């Protein structure tokens, strides 16, 4: 079960730079750890994180095994118009996790 937490202001003034904080629960197995019987745990991480603002990509992160468990990210974007922000994470096993938030720009 994956939990996604996104912190984003509900309203903003036009042209304002807003801070977005995201957190997703994921073990981010980096492929260098071993379990109790000495077997290497295969790599399974979220390799990509992308944010689109009304369909335009505003932030993109390529994640690597050095990303800590439960990837936490703080970044910014310019509030240009009211609309939807879509947050998408891509997993090594092919699964896609996504969530959306709406913002009202005055």
């Amino acid at each position, binding site marked *: 079960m994956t939990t996604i937490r996104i912190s984003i202001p509900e309203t903003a003034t036009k042209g304002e*730079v807003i801070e977005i904080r995201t957190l997703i629960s994921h073990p981010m197995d980096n492929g260098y750890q071993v379990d109790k019987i*000495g077997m290497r745990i295969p790599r399974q991480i979220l390799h990509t994180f992308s944010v689109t603002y009304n369909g335009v990509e505003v932030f993109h992160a*390529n994640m690597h095994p050095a990303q800590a468990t439960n990837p936490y*990210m703080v970044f*910014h974007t*310019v509030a240009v118009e009211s609309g939807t922000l879509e947050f998408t994470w891509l997993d090594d096993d092919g699964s896609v996790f996504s969530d959306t938030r709406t913002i009202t720009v005055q």
Partner: protein
Amino acid sequence: MIEPTRRRFLKRVGVGAGAMALVAVVQQSASAETIELPDREAAILLDAFGSSVLTPGKISLDIPILAETGLSVPITFKVESPMTDADHVSRIMGFAPGNPEPMLADYLIGPRTGKAEVSTRIRLARTGFVYAAAKLSDGTLWGTKFKIIVTLGACMEDIFDVDEALDAERRAVRSAARAAARAAE
């Protein structure tokens, strides 16, 4: 005739000190102009940006001096930039040469990002330098480096989860070898 020892000694010291001073000057000027990256990281930069020459400045790292655990280290990449269409940061990268895979982070940003500042949490395997690189829209590359002490590295869990049976087996082998050595004496 052999020169007096004292004169010979002074001559040698003088030559040595001169050479050392020269090396120090060369090293200093090199570090002031560019940031030297280890080969593996330089290759990644060369692949991504077509150049691995980083000029110090513009980008800064916000990271603790000492991390008690390498499993989760807070890090902030900050670049001084107005983030307009004409002048913005297009990519930020982070490297830790001490890790099995050196890439820490890779962010693709632009004028819509508004502010060239990203915070996250990373894993560090051991004490060492952390490098950051930023590519600006005008094509220039800027970098910085910071030494961080890691008390307990990541990817080391096997030390704490000791396999009891395997450990006993190894201990038996070791004590048998010791007994054999004693018998040979």
